[in-house]
């Protein structure tokens, strides 16, 4: 007979292993515990001893293959009375199963799963900690039978006089048109039912209902005191609430308490929640932020600077012939300051290449600018921004913003960024802790320019002040480099003339 050997969990909670080599070939005769393969797990390289004595019939996986635990890797032809092999005709319990299934099912037991169906196949397992444990499967659980309260069960243990009136299950749990909520409802109803039955309803007590029904009523804005309960002892059921809602609603059309009515009510009346599918830019942004926030250790620093000299410079430039018709904003100068400061602090313009275990330091700057577009956040970048003059940079910035707002940014402009700026000042915000655009080493948030009392040449004066917030990937950038960079940007904005000392 043919016996399959499925890859067991060779460590504690491993989900897959790589076949490094086979020590046997098809047709070879092997003895029990003869080493047949070398396998590498996340923890160790181990030798696999043959679980059977027999002849190799098939090698299901080739060397180099990463195999999920539970997948067959080799088949044996073994004598029918498999001798010491685990699938002997011995115990009734272990009898009909082969070793591979044992292996898989042992894993299930270890995870505390009462898997009632071995035929459900191997559920997808993913490690939650490196090397330890595996997530509990959401599939493969045995289906539970609907409860049949109170025909049997705890209610029978109650004294007769407090027992709920004899009802059929259907009366307690009216067929609910919302399948998704059926389970929850039926799960909870009996428990409350018993409590209520045991205590009885007292005068002045709140209307009798169950927690899911109270939640439903609250969501729909229904006062339960106005609803007549049709359940046992006046219990207000889900249907009662829906019925009440239907009769109250002009939009609902018919008075029937079915799902269509309910949906109509929800849409037509003061909606308390809106559910929007996670997709598109929102989904992408979420994934990017999660990836960034949980792979790059973020450190954020703040610097508040007197940017009055920069604002004065902006005013002069706006009046100059060279900049006629060019949109100049604090962002323009800040971007230029970033580009200048990067030359002195190249670590901020780098990338962590975990795959190759290398740090990539860029000798060019693709400057990303976070842009709020109708579709959501995008971060288009200006290619080789470090080679642009201030005029060209200003033009590129406004072109980039216009294109992004129109939703017409070309995909190449969205990739390949090396550092980013986010201008939260336009929303009147002072500072924040920006999350890195994935793959980049730093992001600078520009705060709003505010007139504030500020020290100026030994006196308090009304100055134009801005806060810079810099987040950087601490794997790539130490506090020293980040601080120096931020100080450089601040110094330029506080005194643009200092650029002469930096380039």
């Amino acid at each position, binding site marked *: 007979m043919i016996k399959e050997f499925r890859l067991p969990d060779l460590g504690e909670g491993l989900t897959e292993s790589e076949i490094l080599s086979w020590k046997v070939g098809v047709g070879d005769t092997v003895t029990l515990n003869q080493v047949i393969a070398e396998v590498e797990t996340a*923890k*160790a390289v181990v030798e696999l001893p043959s*679980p059977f004595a027999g002849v190799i019939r098939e090698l299901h996986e080739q060397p180099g293959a990463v195999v999920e635990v539970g997948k067959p890797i080799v088949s044996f032809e073994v004598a029918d009375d498999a001798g010491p092999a685990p699938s002997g005709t011995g115990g009734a*319990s272990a009898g009909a199963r082969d070793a591979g299934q044992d*292996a898989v099912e042992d894993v299930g037991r270890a995870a505390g799963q009462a898997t*009632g169906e071995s035929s459900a196949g191997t559920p997808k397992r993913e490690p939650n900690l490196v090397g330890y444990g595996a997530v509990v499967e959401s599939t493969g659980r*045995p289906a539970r039978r609907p409860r049949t309260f109170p025909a049997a069960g705890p209610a029978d243990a109650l004294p007769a006089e407090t027992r709920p009136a004899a009802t059929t299950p259907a009366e307690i749990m009216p067929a609910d048109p919302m399948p998704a909520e059926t389970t929850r409802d039926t799960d909870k109803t009996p428990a409350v039912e018993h409590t209520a039955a045991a205590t009885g309803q007292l005068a002045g007590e709140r209307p009798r209902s169950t927690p899911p029904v109270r939640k439903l009523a609250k969501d729909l804005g229904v006062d339960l005191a106005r609803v007549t309960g049709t359940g046992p002892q006046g219990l207000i059921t889900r249907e009662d609430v829906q019925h009440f809602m239907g009769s109250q609603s002009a939009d609902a059309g018919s008075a029937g308490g079915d799902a269509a009515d309910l949906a109509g009510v929800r849409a037509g009346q003061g909606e308390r929640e809106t559910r929007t599918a996670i997709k598109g830019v929102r989904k992408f942004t979420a994934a990017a932020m999660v990836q960034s926030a949980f792979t790059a250790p973020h450190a954020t620093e703040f610097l508040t600077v007197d940017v009055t000299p920069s604002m004065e410079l902006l005013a002069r430039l706006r009046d100059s012939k060279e900049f006629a018709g060019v949109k100049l904003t604090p962002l323009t100068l800040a971007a230029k300051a970033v580009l200048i400061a990067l030359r002195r602090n190249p670590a901020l313009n780098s990338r962590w290449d975990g795959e190759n275990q290398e740090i990539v330091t860029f000798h060019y700057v693709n400057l990303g600018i976070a842009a709020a577009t109708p579709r959501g956040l995008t971060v288009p970048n200006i290619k080789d921004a470090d080679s642009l003059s201030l005029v060209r940079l200003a033009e590129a910035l406004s072109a980039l913003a216009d294109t992004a707002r129109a939703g017409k940014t070309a995909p190449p402009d969205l990739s390949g960024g090396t550092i980013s700026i986010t201008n939260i000042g336009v929303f009147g915000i002072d500072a924040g802790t920006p999350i890195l655009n994935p793959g980049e080493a730093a992001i600078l948030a520009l705060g709003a320019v505010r007139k504030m009392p500020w020290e100026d040449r030994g006196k308090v004066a009304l100055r134009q002040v801005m806060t810079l917030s810099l987040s950087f990937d601490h794997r790539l950038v130490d506090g020293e480099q980040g601080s120096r960079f931020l100080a450089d940007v601040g110094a330029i904005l506080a005194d643009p003339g200092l650029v002469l000392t930096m380039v």
Partner: protein
Amino acid sequence: MSTDETGQGGPAAPNSARHPHGQGRDLVQLVTPTGERISHPEFDYWVRDVTDEQLCSLYEDMTVIRRIDVEATALQRQGELGLWPPLLGQEAAQIGSGRALRTDDFVFSSYRENGVAYCRGVDLTDILRVWRGTASSGWDPYTINMATPQIIIGAQTLHATGYAMGIQNDGADSVAVTYFGDGATSEGDVNEAMVFAASFQVPVVFFCTNNHWAISEPVRLQSHIQLADRAAGFGIPSLRVDGNDVLAVMAATRVALDRARRGGGPTFIEAVSYRMGPHTTADDPTRYRDANELEDWAARDPISRIAALLERKGLLSAELQQDVKDKADAVAREMRTGCTTMPDPEPLDVFKNVYSTPNSWLDRQQDHYARYLATFGDPAGAVSEEGAR
């Protein structure tokens, strides 16, 4: 070799053991790595009764427990066990000490002392239950006077000290013996156990198998002095013995047991050995260990050593070797069969062996759980996992 009922009487314990103030003292060794029996002025006495036949028996025991270990490791690789902690290289420490005990002594061990359990007469299937995940403990401790293995590092030393306090109150002359590793000596539990053992002068033997590695932590990082010298801080006499020399281990254990039986209080034994395999089957020692180190220790292999001794004595006949191999294979077969035919527990078995007497709260929980299980689609499957398969 059967459990030692002798070993009582004899001269007072060796001086060096009573005054453990020296540092860097020599290992007690009775057999060299090449199998030469060397005489020792103090310790020869304690193994004077070991006959050639018993030496052969020790050889058999060590070979058998190595085979048990190999088989269990294979069973883990084949998916039959969740995990296994190999004892490869520590056979002499376990057999030499385990065979020195009396049946009424009580063992509190870590999870690696499967060789000691074998000496206590454990059912081989019982060793595997926990590692197969079908039971929360393998056997009734009182049937073999050995507690089920403790997973928490060093916690068993407290149990041993407590048990020894009980022996003292009973006025018995049995001894509690606790096994732990080098890493455990850094644990609070072990230190507390030694404080209490010294304070009450209870009959307990702290048997520390220094296998040089606490998973990936080398012993030199754990202690700047020899582990045996740690005992001096508690006022506990200690011995430092070649843990790969089964005779030396037996002699040292007998010294400690004798002191305990005579009311002399606790003894700390450091058996210097080496974990030649991984910490468990989930570990890869090549990632943190120098291969040369393993090679050095392989040259001091405990089984090769006793085999060399038998060879020198002309006892290592082909017949003996074949008998021992047959015995080992038979034991391995028995264990494999016991493992693969072990019935899965029923869901409600979790309520068994919790309290020795009926407990209404537990009964209630059991009743609830049974009713919960009954809500699953297949009534047979609810009660019996097997039924659903």
